[in-house]
């Protein structure tokens, strides 16, 4: 039962580890240079999944304040102004902030997600450099199979 709980409540972490190991396996054991790079991409994506799942909360939404959250009585006061009973009072910025009732639990944590934008860019750049190097390897050795390249290096000696 405990094991089931550990698996079910933290399944996102289990999945990220499984994906990461798939990527690591491909990077280490594949013979084809492009397949290794695919493994590298899977590996990095697993870490992105890990970070994204840190920031997620159950039932939470994106960390943006909607208009009616900032001006909760705006519609009402407008209505009252129309009927001529209310005061024409526009709250200042400080008052709005002071009156806001924001529960942090209602919003997902944006920071890990923002960090992953950077990590995605880094990942794309790494993949680009990797593919460029693969292309150069192919031009130099006429193959992208690691075993064949090593054979041609040995025979050149």
């Amino acid at each position, binding site marked *: 039962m405990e094991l089931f709980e550990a698996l079910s409540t933290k399944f996102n972490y289990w999945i990220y580890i499984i994906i990461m190991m798939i990527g690591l396996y491909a990077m280490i054991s594949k013979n084809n240079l492009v397949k290794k790079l695919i493994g590298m991409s899977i590996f990095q994506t697993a*870490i992105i999944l890990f970070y994204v799942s840190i920031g997620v909360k159950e039932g939470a939404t994106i960390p943006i304040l909607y208009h009616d959250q900032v001006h909760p009585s705006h519609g009402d006061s407008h209505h009252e102004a129309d009927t001529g009973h209310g005061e024409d009072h526009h709250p200042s910025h400080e008052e709005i902030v002071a009156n806001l009732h924001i529960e942090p639990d209602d919003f997902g944590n944006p920071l890990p997600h923002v960090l992953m934008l950077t990590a995605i860019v880094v990942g794309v750049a790494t993949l680009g450099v990797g593919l460029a190097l693969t292309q150069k390897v192919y031009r130099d050795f006429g193959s992208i199979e690691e075993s064949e*390249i090593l054979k041609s290096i040995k025979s050149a000696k």
Partner: protein
Amino acid sequence: MIDQSPALILLAPFLLAIVLALLGIKREWLCFPLVIAGLAISVAASVVTLMRVIDEGTIQYFFGGWEPPFGINLRVDGLNALVALAVSTVSLLTAIYSKRAVPAETSDKVSQFYTLYLLSVTGLLGIVLTGDAFNLYVLIEISALTSYALIGMGSRRATLAAYKYLIMGTIGASFYLLGVGYLYIKTGSLNMYDIQEQIVANNLHSSPTIFVAFVVIMVGVWIKMAFFPLHSWLPNSYTYGPSTTSALLGPLVTKVMIYVMIRMILTVFSPEFAFDQLDWSNIVVWMSVIAILAASISALSQTSLQKMLAFLIIAEVGYMVGGVWLTDEMGMVGSIYHIIADAFMTLCVFLFAGIIFTKTGRRDLSAMEGLFTKMPLTMVGFLVGAFSLIGIPPTAGFFSKWYLIQGGISSGHYEYVAALLISSLINAVIFFRIIEIAYFGTKPAEGHGHHHNEEHKDGPKEASFSMLFPLLITAALLLGIGLYNQEVVAIITNFVSQFNIGAIIL
């Protein structure tokens, strides 16, 4: 201007890299002066920053005026001020060396090479200066991505070596990123000092999450610094890349990563956690003993000069990792001093290897036959570097080994002391073999004056000024750092003593 000095250290090469990328392709003559200008500003700013740190203590620089933990800051103390000065000086000296070497080796890509060079230096300086754990990851990747490209510009084998480096480097950096994620889960912060405060305030030292973060970060950093079983990417990358690349990355990348390890242990996780709670010290010191011995023996069996030096770098990494994990104040001081000393001695021998390669076009040891008569000044520079790597006084290498051995003895790790001494002996064998070849030649029957004269005419002459100058300056710096070791060590001790490592009883 003075207030901005920490930011200038890395902004000068960064901004000039952009200028170079825009203007350099059409105007190749502009590349070299711009690189020198950028790095000279960087060196000057490092000197100013170091002076300020000595006067005022820790300097904080807030980017855009945002204070941490919300903003990103540079935080400079006695440790990173010294390392930043070493990094910027080494990159300036290598840049001077590159004047002839880059057009000769990568003739069609001069401006691209220099742009990547400046960006790589920016990344390395950023790693050293930043106070933000996630920024550190981005900067590791900046310096790594540029170094893959810089290595890949070399010969046929270099491309494959760069590819392997890319795979290993990405695994290392990703592990580091993972560790930062675990730290963030527990502390909710990315600023190194804030993380430390949160760990202490919430008493998280016994948390398994922090433990996982530490393990993952250490593994990542060890891969990036080529700690012995994880070193496979290094030898070929530094052997077959262009000689300027080897002279830039060889001295810097591994040392900067050792700085990251020290920073993580001392500042982020605190030494009590790393040394006392985990009780890893014995294991890691034994690992470093194996690293030192295995790498030194591998170096002994190499016939290519560059590859031999690359294995020596791996052995030196073992010295420093061992010194950090001795759990001794003297060992820590020795390791930090060795970062600076080793940056310059590795630079010295790699510059020598680069000069030999450009002059003779060969990498094997027999290329050095009779060099004492043909290139006396180059050999003088090399001798200082070699003596420093062996550990002969008064070079810097002697004093760093002295402190490391003192640390080893006072913490009772005699196996580490023995490994250091054996490695010094092996270094002596290696370098005296080179000196013998350079002085007497490989063939015994070459003493005839007639034959000698003939060879003198055909053989290589003294290296050009732009190559010789950085080599001799580096040699002079090695002697200078050695002779003024007490001043340098005073700064380091001042930094290390606040952590009270000696009080940790194992």
